[in-house]
């Protein structure tokens, strides 16, 4: 379980800074550091076992149907990354406390950093590919928030958006790749996938899987041609650049490639794609790093170049090359984070990051200079730093490659060129900043020279510490790095982990010669840097940011055009389009059927059926034809409604018939009321063409629906009816299966439905607020409404009917579990009976005698239903499990009670409340009791 604590601790850590930032910067940073340091301690507790070759894992089932588990693992590769994430992360959090200016929102910043830390830990620890992807996307989001931290700056907003789009799109490609892998392997568990390498490599989807996974990895790790977002991400505060955009997040891509190496690697496709892309990235970015003037830009391009180096090593794929790749992941993180911190310090102290404006800082900032000297030498690959070791390994492995046949020799040559560039830009950083005089323009010379000094010890310490690590690891690699490397390479390569010897001195050999060539070439290149810059200036500047922005703008314009095309504000048009597409779908479905009539014969017809069908067809067509004579149209509609109810009677659905009948009454009252508020006879403003179009659309859809229905009716269907029929009495305690389904088997659905009903009621309540009314004084012929609003006979009859109707509704309710009836129907009957009182006597009269608040009735119905459902938890059963029993009362005899009955009471109340809420309120607006704003 302690594995789960590692990401949990950092998750909890997300809220810590937000809560403590009000107590001052120092305390906030200190409190924030607790969680990652504890997590680091936990990781270190597992370290001895992992280094001994164990894989520690934990698996909690999450969504088993999707193959998604909360599965975590710590193996060597995880250990390495966890150390980087938590160790460098803590140093950077500490540094950020000094870096952020006093008025900045440190709580928010540190919370985002912790969010990122959690997500990144998740990637490293995930033992399930889907889980890995979730964390992968979470890092993109955290990175978006952090790059855009200074959201008032447009470059920050643009950079954040670009990073999110590029890495987010890559993430989607990765998801597709993962899903394909899951389909091939039949599992998303890491262990299963890694063990199924042969299966994946021989599958016909293998090239597609590689393409998709590499899209994800290359975008995340800023490989050519997706590298362009990383320099733009430098708009982030420098601690972010140090942490996300050099040490950890951009390593997620190479981590993924290393992780999946056993499953996907070891093919020509994999090796060639990785090596060539890595090599191209390495060269291209190193060249731009040499030309760049912004300090963070130099480091950004150099980061891209080093990521290319790691990708190249993974592509070379020999056991030692993979060891070198892992080693370089670690080395690069140490020296590059230190260098970013240095840039932050210089920016902080001098106010500029322009390398030409800066110079001769050594005397002013000796400690910062030392840090740069150490970390910069490691980046250049000078002995005795750790960068030298991994670069020597690269030289050696590049010589051994055999990827391109006779052309293979190109790879070591180009690697040496890239190494020269790397030496050149590293030396340029050290030399121009600390030793050379600044190259100032005339105006800049007129300004007073820069004054700077070393920052406080707290700001220097993390960077110096990391720089020192890159030196110490370089000096004692076998003691400090080898065990970890061995464990990590075991995780990547399985059983075949190579024996390796890390040492500064291997004797005079080819790699050493290449190193010397790189240094000599680098120094030469640095001397020619001005010329290179002038040469580069001859080319038109191709700002990837602008190109990207233009593409996005074009895309937005295109979608806007399409949207405006589709969405012109006409409901009729939307509906026509919608119906047309439904028609197309249904038609396609029908073409798949061999013949329309299925294997089941037709049942015989009788006269009643003809009569019913005739009535319904007459009503439907009549209601459509007479739509301008609205009352007539409504009457026609009611003919259809009643016939539907009779249809249900005929075809053995008594519950439906009862429900339809009572709903019919309520909805007719509603629509007649609506008619009162809407124009009686609208003007005719439609062209013949429009009518023809609508007729064709309506007729075709009607035809297709009829054919579909016919096709279904004449076929045997696989039904689960037997289950319900069998289980109704023993499982639900009722003989009316429909009601048992509603209140028991599918009670959760019913609960959702009465919730919707109540919500609709509440929404109409709100819509009637402050309504401007159009109330006609008479009917369409100009005859004024009668002044006798409440006819006497109706009033008397209604009063007599009320107790009867209530009695009937109680009867219907009580028998509902065993005979047709139940809460829905009883509720509608009660509501109609009460409504009749309102109609007969008016709002005021009824209100006086029945002071009920219908929203309260509806909501208490919901509450009863919910409480019944929750009640089963008390007895240790799932939500809405019903219980029932048989009881005996003297005089009445044996009867049965079920908790489902209580649930049905909830349904009953909710239906009454909602129905009356709608109808009474609508009726009320015609009276003086019309709701106004003051009431609410």
């Amino acid at each position: 379980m302690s594995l789960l604590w590692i990401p949990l601790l950092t998750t909890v850590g997300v809220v810590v800074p937000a809560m403590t930032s009000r107590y001052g910067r120092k305390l906030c940073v200190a409190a924030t550091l607790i969680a990652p340091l504890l997590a680091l301690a936990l990781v270190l507790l597992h370290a001895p076992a992992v280094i001994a070759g164990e894989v520690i894992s934990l698996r909690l089932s999450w969504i088993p149907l999707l193959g998604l588990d909360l599965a975590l693992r710590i193996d060597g590769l995880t250990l390495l990354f966890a150390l980087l994430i938590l160790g460098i992360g803590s140093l950077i959090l500490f540094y950020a406390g000094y870096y952020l200016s006093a008025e900045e929102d440190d709580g928010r910043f540190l919370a985002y950093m912790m969010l990122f830390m959690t997500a990144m830990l998740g990637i490293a620890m995930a033992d399930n590919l889907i889980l890995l992807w979730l964390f992968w996307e979470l890092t993109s989001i955290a990175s978006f928030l952090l790059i855009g931290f200074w959201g008032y700056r447009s470059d920050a907003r643009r950079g954040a958006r670009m990073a999110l789009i590029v890495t987010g799109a890559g993430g989607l490609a990765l998801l597709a790749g993962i899903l394909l892998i899951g389909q091939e392997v039949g599992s998303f568990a890491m262990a299963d996938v890694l063990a199924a390498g042969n299966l994946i490599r021989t599958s016909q989807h293998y090239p597609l899987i590689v393409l998709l996974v590499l899209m994800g990895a290359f975008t995340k790790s800023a490989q050519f041609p997706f590298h362009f977002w990383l320099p733009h991400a430098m708009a982030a505060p420098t601690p972010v650049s140090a942490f996300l955009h050099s040490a950890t997040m951009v390593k997620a891509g190479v981590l993924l490639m290393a992780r999946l190496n056993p499953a996907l690697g070891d093919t020509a496709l994999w090796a060639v794609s990785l090596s060539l892309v890595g090599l191209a990235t390495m060269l291209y970015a190193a060249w731009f790093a040499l030309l760049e003037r912004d300090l963070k830009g130099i480091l950004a391009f150099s980061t891209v170049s080093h990521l290319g180096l790691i990708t190249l090593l993974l592509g070379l794929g020999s056991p030692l090359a993979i060891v070198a790749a892992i080693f370089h992941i670690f080395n690069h993180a140490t020296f590059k984070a230190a260098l970013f911190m240095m840039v932050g310090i210089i920016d902080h102290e001098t106010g500029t990051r322009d390398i030409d404006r800066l110079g001769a800082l050594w005397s002013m900032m000796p400690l910062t200079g030392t840090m740069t000297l150490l970390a910069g030498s490691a980046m250049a690959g000078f002995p005795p730093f750790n960068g030298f070791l991994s670069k020597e390994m690269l030289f050696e492995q590049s010589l051994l490659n055999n990827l391109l046949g006779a052309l293979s020799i190109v790879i070591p040559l180009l690697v040496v060129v890239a190494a020269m560039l790397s030496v050149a830009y590293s030396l340029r950083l050290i030399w121009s900043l600390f030793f050379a005089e600044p190259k100032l323009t005339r105006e800049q010379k007129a300004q007073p020279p820069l004054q700077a000094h070393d920052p406080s010890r707290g700001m220097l310490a993390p960077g110096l510490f990391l720089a020192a690590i890159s030196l110490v690891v370089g000096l004692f690699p076998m003691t400090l790095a080898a065990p970890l490397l061995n464990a990590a390479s075991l995780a990547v390569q399985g059983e075949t982990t190579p024996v390796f010897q890390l040492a500064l001195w291997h004797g005079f050999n080819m790699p050493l010669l290449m190193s010397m060539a790189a240094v000599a070439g680098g120094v030469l290149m640095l001397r020619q840097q001005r010329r290179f810059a002038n040469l580069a200036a001859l080319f038109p500047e191709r700002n990837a940011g602008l190109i990207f922005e233009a593409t996005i703008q074009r895309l937005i314009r295109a979608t806007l055009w399409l949207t405006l095309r589709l969405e012109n504000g006409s409901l009729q048009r939307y509906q026509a389009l919608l119906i047309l597409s439904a028609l197309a779908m249904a038609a396609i479905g029908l073409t798949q059927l061999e013949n329309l009539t299925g294997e089941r014969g037709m049942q015989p017809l009788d006269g009643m059926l003809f009569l019913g069908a005739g009535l319904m067809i007459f009503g439907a067509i009549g209601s459509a034809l007479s739509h301008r004579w609205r009352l007539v149209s409504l009457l026609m509609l009611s003919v259809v409604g009643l016939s539907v109810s009779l249809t249900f009677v005929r075809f053995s659905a008594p519950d439906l018939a009862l429900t339809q009948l009572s709903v019919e009454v309520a909805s007719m009252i509603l629509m007649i009321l609506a008619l009162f508020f809407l124009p009686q006879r609208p003007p005719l403003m439609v062209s013949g063409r429009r009518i023809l179009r609508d007729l064709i659309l309506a007729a075709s859809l009607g035809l297709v629906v009829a054919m579909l229905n016919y096709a279904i009716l004449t076929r045997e269907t696989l039904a689960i009816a037997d289950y319900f029929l069998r289980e109704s009495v023993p499982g639900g305690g009722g003989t009316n299966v429909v009601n048992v389904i509603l209140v028991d088997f599918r009670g959760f659905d019913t609960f959702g439905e009465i919730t919707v009903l109540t919500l609709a009621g509440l929404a109409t309540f709100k819509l009637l607020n402050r309504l401007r009314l159009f109330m006609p004084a008479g009917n369409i012929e100009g005859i004024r409404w009668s002044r006798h609003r409440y006819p006497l006979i109706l009033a008397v009859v209604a009063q007599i009917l009320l107790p009867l109707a209530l009695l009937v509704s109680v009867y219907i309710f009580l028998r509902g579990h065993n005979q047709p009836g139940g809460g829905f129907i009883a509720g509608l009957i009660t509501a109609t009976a009460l409504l009749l009182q309102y109609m007969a006597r008016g709002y005021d009269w009824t209100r006086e005698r029945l002071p009920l608040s219908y929203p309260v009735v509806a909501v208490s119905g919901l509450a009863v239903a919910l409480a019944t459902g929750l009640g089963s938890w008390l007895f240790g059963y799932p939500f809405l499990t019903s219980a029932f029993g048989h009881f005996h009362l003297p005089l009445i005899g044996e009867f049965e009670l079920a908790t489902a009955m209580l649930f049905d009471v909830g349904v009953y109340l909710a239906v009454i409340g909602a129905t009356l809420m709608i109808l009474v309120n609508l009726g009320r607006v015609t009276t003086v009791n019309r709701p106004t704003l003051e009431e609410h």
Partner: protein
Amino acid sequence: MEALFSLVVGVLTASGIYLLLRGRTFPVIVGLALLGYAVNLFLFSSGGLHTDAAAVIGESFAPADPLPQALVLTAIVIGFAMTAFVVILAIRARGDLGSDHVDGQQGEDGDMLQ
């Protein structure tokens, strides 16, 4: 019988769709109601058409499929809630815009009292 049933469902659908495509709110409401009937009948019929076979245990030898019935029962009630909401939306739209056109075009009718 099955053919007649599907014919009725088809006619209800067609009439409903035609009304749904009108430009005034009231026919649209009526059209929705008609379409609702059609959909309910369609759904209901997916369990087959049975005579004298109510899904009550002990009442009939081969009871009809109760599941579509249960689904349609709630669909009828929900349909009522939806109709009510649309009706009141239509009234509100006319109150605020002075017209009962579905696109909310500013009003042209004159039978307003207040």
